[in-house]
């Protein structure tokens, strides 16, 4: 376990568990949000563009 003797020592962080894991948790959430935002933006564009394309196709057929 590297510097720590065992797993529970690692989780405990020498009594600073709350601060360390809260910081890393917030960072993880914000990183995750950045990735999620890409996916949402992409999906929003493709649904919009495909609908637009279909409408144009229909107008063209009619």
């Amino acid at each position, binding site marked *: *376990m*590297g*510097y*720590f003797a065992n797993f529970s020592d*690692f989780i405990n*962080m*020498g*009594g*600073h568990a709350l*601060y*360390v894991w*809260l*910081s*890393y948790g*917030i*960072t993880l959430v*914000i*990183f995750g*949000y*950045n*990735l999620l*935002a*890409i996916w949402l*933006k*992409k999906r929003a*564009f*493709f649904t*919009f*563009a*495909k609908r*637009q*394309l279909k409408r144009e196709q229909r107008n063209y057929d009619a």
Partner: protein
Amino acid sequence: MNIKMPKWFYQLASPKWSYDIMGMLMPWFGLAALLLLVTGIVWGLMFAPPDYQQGNSYRIIYIHVPSAILAQSCFMLMAVAGIIGMVWKMKVAHIVAKSAAPIGASMTIIALSTGAIWGKPTWGAWWVWDARLTSMLILLFLYLGIIALYSAFSNKASGDQAASILTLVGVVNIPIIKYSVEWWNTLHQPASFTLTKKPAMPPEMWVPLLIMVLGYYCFFAYVLMARTRIELLEREHKSGWVTALLTDTP
């Protein structure tokens, strides 16, 4: 202004070329970010020795410092992209600047919240009006202003220009803000123990920090390119290459 630039610079102005080249580069940056961040976090959390003064709480440095660095360099990048966009009338540069703003703001939020949390075991309070934290907070306000200005304009080209002007004004002001906040801080409290300034870190501490900084930059590049590509598609959705792309993919 007419400054001769290399050929790739003018190619960047083509939305399709930029879209393709970013699509090619993106996976590599994503992979590098994943490898660097995992290595850096495991090394920083498990293998780096604890700090003799702060114990294990100093391990927050591995996510705090890279985000603070990135938050500032992202603003510089937006300013440079804004200048390129205005001088050479390059739409792609404006789109890069616009896509960078929310990422920079989220990095600032990371730096602020991890700094505040780190302050609790170090200074005994969840928020301290420390010079670095205060400048970070002001940087966040600058980011929020720029993002709000982008969304206030219904005409995207005008929004790009307005936000670029504001970014340039902000970039000129950042050193002044930093200096005045530091001065204000020394005025109101004698120089106290700062979080990250320490005498000569041993290599087993700073090597993982360096890895994390590189990892953050790669992650930033990955997200920036992804956002830029989608924004390019949105702005160009009536042009031929986007329609071709849409009909090709199911």
